């Protein structure tokens, strides 16, 4: 409806979703854009789904959007659920090797989705599947899964490298900045071929 771009970050409480949203917001601010966002976190600490939305552009009026241009999922089930948020020609960046089964699946009452690819094709979206856990471990900490995914998403987001750096510096403690910068680069490189950069 206007020029605002919407990125939704989805996952499970404790996966660093709110930090990822903060990094993205600071990056967009460094890029000179107006930014608004919204988070649903009330029950996050108790195992519920978490959704954080960041919207940026010349002018942004609404903090939320029914449809996202990019969905970043830190977990497979939430990635499949996140497909519903994507408009046509959207991009799903998903940590497809990370699986956190909810209670109903653990009790054998529901089935965890087998994979992502079929569902993504069905919805006509671009899929960037990243083994974010492996790359985060390679960078130095499993906790950097969120930043690995931001690195991958950066391949389809309109920000300069310098803006991303300022976004990370503004939000990540100095002591773990280097690890996170490594994680970001690994994520970006992981999808470079697929995105054609």
């Amino acid at each position, binding site marked *: *409806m*206007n020029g*605002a771009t919407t990125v939704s970050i989805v996952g*499970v409480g404790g996966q660093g979703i709110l930090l990822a949203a*903060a990094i993205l*917001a*600071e990056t967009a*601010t460094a890029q000179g854009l*107006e*930014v*608004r*966002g*919204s*988070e*649903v*976190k*009330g*029950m996050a*600490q*108790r*195992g*519920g*789904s978490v959704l954080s939305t960041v919207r940026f552009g010349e*002018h*942004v*009026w*609404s*903090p*939320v*959007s*029914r*449809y996202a241009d990019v969905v970043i999922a830190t977990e497979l*089930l*939430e990635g*499949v*659920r996140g497909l*519903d948020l994507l408009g046509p020609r959207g991009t799903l960046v998903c940590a497809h090797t990370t699986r956190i*089964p*909810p*209670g*109903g*699946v*653990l*009790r*054998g009452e*529901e*089935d*965890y*989705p087998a994979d992502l690819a079929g569902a993504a094709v069905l919805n006509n979206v671009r899929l960037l599947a990243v083994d974010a856990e492996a790359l985060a471990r390679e960078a130095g900490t499993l906790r950097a899964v969120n930043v690995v995914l931001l690195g991958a998403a950066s391949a389809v987001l309109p920000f300069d490298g310098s803006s991303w750096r300022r976004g990370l510096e503004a939000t990540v403690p100095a002591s773990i900045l280097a690890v996170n910068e490594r994680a970001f680069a690994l994520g970006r490189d992981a999808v470079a071929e697929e995105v054609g950069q």
Partner: protein
Amino acid sequence: MAVVGFGYNPSLVERTFFFSGNEAIAHGAVRAGAGFACGYPGTPSTEIIETLVGLGGIHAEWCANEKVALETAVGASLAGVRSIVTMKHVGLNVAADPLMTLSLTGVNAGLVVVTADDPGMHSSQNEQDNRTYARFAKIPMLEPSDSQEAYDFVAEAFALSERFDTPVLLRSTTRISHGRGQVLPRVAVALEPREYERDLDKYVMVPQHARVRNHIVLERLERLRGFSEESPLNVLEAGTSDFGIIAAGVAYGYAREAFPKAWFLKLGLSNPLPYAKVVRLYEHVSRVAVVEELDPFIEEQVRSLGLPVVGKAAIPAEGELDQDVVFRALEPYVVRKPPRRRRPTVPPAPRLASPAPPAGLPVRHPVLCPGCTHWSVFAVLRRLRLAPMGDIGCYTLGALPPLLALDTCLCMGASVGMMAGFNQALGRKAAAAVIGDSTFFHSGVTSLIDAFSNEAEGLVVVLDNLSTAMTGHQGHPGTGVHPDGRRGPGVDIQRLCEGIGVRCVTVDATDYASLEAAISAEASAPGLGVVVARAPCVLTLRETPGAAAVDAGRCNLCGACLEIGCPALVPGETAMRVTEACTGCGLCIEICRRGALGRAGALLGGAS
């Protein structure tokens, strides 16, 4: 971004902040010279007080409940200190008694009441529209539409409060409070001293004084309407189409994105409504819609002016809106020909939102945390033949699968009164009450006093995790922990109950056998009794005992341990499995009848 100066010079600052609405309100309160802040925690309002504590320079405290909070803030206002009091929407029901008469007495130093509403019920038991309280109490209401306005409007609210001698309602919603946006800080407001002056006619609301004050309130409302007409808080924004929209709060943002060419009457001060500005909008466009979440609050007032308007006939009267919903709802009305003058008709029935289609994917229900001692209490309660009356807190999750351990959840503190009434009606001990420690102090105590004095039968289990856990571990009168972490005197629940005259025992909730014995004994005893099941919230523990482990040779997958519903227990192919989420609470070890569960390392071989 809607950055309005309001006569203040923006200070020269290095950067803009990316504040949530709640952070913006806190910073705005400090900038406005507020010296006193209090409230009761409740989503989505909690972070205002928590941010204020971090900012310093202001006295911030949690109160036992919202009524106490408002009364405390009134005292601070009378003493001459600008005061802000925060609560979620249902909290204002509790504080409604002082609010209604505070409208008559007015204030000394500015007093701002923040109500954070929750359309869509992300974390609430209802989605009441608290704008009605502003009309009900005849007080001004400000509705910020983004974080910058949340920051700016606090100073506006304090200025209004002092200028018109009235409490001011600052109404937020979840998407404002938990939404984020860039905020440009501004220079601090210069305050006039406001010494307390004794004024019996103004502050003692006996009938002969109140009749005079009531008249002043009605006059004040019209002076406020005059201000509302003049104030830049209510802006007529020119568009390029023949379509006009009236909106306030977050709904303005949705409408603005959906219809960028429309004319807008953007309301920042939405009560009292500026009638003349509404009429002026109709001079520019032939079709007007009101975009608002929940009730037709603005729409009905526009209708009362005799003006044709599209509102709840198109826009859902429940849940949250967004730009997509607004666009689809109003698109037909943008192209339709202007309505001719017709005979009066009743307004059409409001539209209801269509329920979300089932996605067919496993739902991630929020559940009690692994290691939470509430599991133990529910495991005991399920075996009792007592209808469990529930209350509001983490433990409300016990009503959901897999536990299904509570029968009711109405409002804060309701469990004890409902239990008493249930048992009085049947003439026997048929119901028990389950209530958290913070909720007990909020409004359970008075019900317990009532049950005792009315000789009701009953069992009250106080789930005392020494914290207001659901909203993020705030202190309460039982812990004596202040928002800044200082520890003051706490009220002992058992001594309180015994002071009332109620039989009470306190048990360690991590000791399953004692817990079961205490609750079972009280369930079969005559009269009224309280069991305090005490153990610190597992999320506040730094160190936990060793995790549980399974002896695969003994486990036969009987499923007894699954009954407690712990998320850390997972059925495997041939035996149960304990995931990394285990905190080592040991409840499953107590429950297992085959001795297949034990502490990791303590089991002889076969530990997985």
